[in-house]
């Protein structure tokens, strides 16, 4: 009977109820998007850092991985040191550089990573095969599109261009052996990968035995932070960043986004709360006579409260369900817009749907809805019965 009466109250003004539900849905969608933004970027970074299971990023002293053009010298020595530590299971070098593809007088400049094909963690092969010998390379779809090259083609490439002499330096002919998806670069940026020794050799003496970065995976059960400290102690020319520390740094840098998300999320909660509180208050005010009659015929205060709180709860519940759908659609749209931002890795998402966070925030909204109904419900429950009936009879 209580449910029937609550439903009846909502059905009495269908247009008003629909508008309120839509309002709650918009608030819920905004809340969901803000939660997806606040938690999504962090989670995205985490996945990004963990995607190939490397725990340590070893970069030139005082820099962040691939943040500058600085490189680490005596790479062989560094790798030997790392591989001698039993706590380090895998260490793989990465060298980032420019690569010019010379194609019938036209040049396409792309980014290239020199890798160890056996242990690399930069790309996932989609077609063809990984570099099997020194003159072999793989590239992403953007690279293929920009150079009009096909798998199996031999490409004329260069490491640099001397503007004074107007000649390419470090020229080499490489076989395009595979197409790959690169994990750390934007989808629309042309990228190639080739054996690190080849890329080093193309760069001449100044690039010999140098790497931009070494990725390392620790043995299972080993403490990555302790291993990182060990590396920094034994190899003073590098800075080692563990995934944990990197995540902490990301957290600090993302703090603004998180705060923005939380504040806007709180605002949408407040909007939802006020909307429901307003609607329920109006609805209670226009039927104080009925409520007084119900009380007069023996309906308990508790029932009146239940009925009115239920009213607010239904509004928010239906609004939250609609808002969930609306929020997911808008998040996808916003994500698409933001992901077009140049230079962002394709695996990176601003808005990430995480069920726990989503349910928690929508649960919070529904709780707000119940709370919004609580005040008008309490006021209805304590109405003086005789006085209200008298006022209503006069009105």
């Amino acid at each position, binding site marked *: *009977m209580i449910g*029937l*009466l609550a439903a*009846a*109250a909502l*059905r*009495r003004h269908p247009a008003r109820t629909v508008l309120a539900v839509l309002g709650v849905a918009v608030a819920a969608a905004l809340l969901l998007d803000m939660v997806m933004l606040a938690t999504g970027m962090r989670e995205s970074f985490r996945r990004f850092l963990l995607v190939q299971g490397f725990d340590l990023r070893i970069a030139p002293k005082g820099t962040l991985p691939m943040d500058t053009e600085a490189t680490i010298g005596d790479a062989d020595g560094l790798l030997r040191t790392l591989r001698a530590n039993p706590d380090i299971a895998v260490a793989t070098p990465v060298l980032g550089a420019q690569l010019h593809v010379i194609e019938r007088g036209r040049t396409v400049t792309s980014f290239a990573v020199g890798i160890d094909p056996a242990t690399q963690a930069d790309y996932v092969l989609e077609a063809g095969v990984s570099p099997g010998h020194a003159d072999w390379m793989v590239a992403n779809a953007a690279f293929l599109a920009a150079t009009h090259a096909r798998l199996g083609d031999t490409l004329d490439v260069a490491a640099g261009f001397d503007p004074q002499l107007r000649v390419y330096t470090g020229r080499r002919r490489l076989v395009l052996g595979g197409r790959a998806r690169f994990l750390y670069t934007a989808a629309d940026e042309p990228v190639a990968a080739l054996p690190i020794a080849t890329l080093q050799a193309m760069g001449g003496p100044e690039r010999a035995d140098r790497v931009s970065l070494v990725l390392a995976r620790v043995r299972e059960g080993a403490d990555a932070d302790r291993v990182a400290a060990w590396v920094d102690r034994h190899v003073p020319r590098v800075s080692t960043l563990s995934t944990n520390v990197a995540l902490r740094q990301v957290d600090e840098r993302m703090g603004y986004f998180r705060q923005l998300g939380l504040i806007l999320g709180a605002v949408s909660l407040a909007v939802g709360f006020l909307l429901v509180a307003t609607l329920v208050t109006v609805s209670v005010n226009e039927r104080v*006579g*009925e409520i007084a*009659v*119900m*009380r*007069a*015929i*023996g*309906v*308990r*205060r508790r*029932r009146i409260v239940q009925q009115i709180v239920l009213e607010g709860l239904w509004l928010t519940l239906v609004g939250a369900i609609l808002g969930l759908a609306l929020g997911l659609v808008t998040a996808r749209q916003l994500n698409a817009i933001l992901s077009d931002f140049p230079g962002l890795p394709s695996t990176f998402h601003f808005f990430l749907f995480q069920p726990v966070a989503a349910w928690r925030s929508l649960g919070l909204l529904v709780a707000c809805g119940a709370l919004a109904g609580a005040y008008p419900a309490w006021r209805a429950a304590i109405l*003086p*019965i*005789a*006085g209200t*009936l*008298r006022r*209503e*009879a006069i009105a």
Partner: protein
Amino acid sequence: MAAQPAPTPGAARAPVVSVRGLRRDYPMGDEIVRALRGVSFDIGAGEHVAIVGPSGCGKSTLLNLLGVIDRPTAGEVRIQGRDVGGLPDREATAFRLRHIGFVFQRFYLMPMLSARENVELPMAEAGVPAAARAARARELLAYVGLADRERHRPAQLSGGEQQRVAIARALANRPTLLLADEPTGELDAATGGEVIALFQRLREDGTTLVVVTHDDALARAAGRVIQMRDGGIVGR
């Protein structure tokens, strides 16, 4: 109590209603409106009493105190021997549910519920199982002559029909006392007549009935008339 003389001849046996020295003041800013100035009477089981008097003389105030939806400033209201004047809300509500049936001038049915659901409302509150209350609601609607209207909403019923549904609702939990404040106040003579006829039947069936009214026809139908003026009883 025993020292006081029995003020009403109609209540020889244990009265259903016993009112003693009843007062109700309404504070209005600095002034106090004395709506009831010490009223005493008894109503016996099965009596049909009409309360009449000029507007503002305190009829509704008295009825509200009998119906336990208001509290007296002083004096005593006993219903079936129980002092109901000072009951806390929870007990007053439970008392109304079991013992009082209310009929209002403005019918006051729940507009979104059908006639039958309206009659079921007090039974649902009393915890009557759904099947039993549906059966009793049908029985009551048949009693008030609306057996074929159980699915209709109040807006689909005439004023007189709505008032009869309200009477059925008031009877739902077999109340000790049925109270009606101007039950024909918003009805024309013909439809008012239906309600009066119904009250007469209720009286024949032994329901104790107190009706506040300006309607001579309704007052004549009562077995006893209490005349009020200026917050006091001036004639019986």
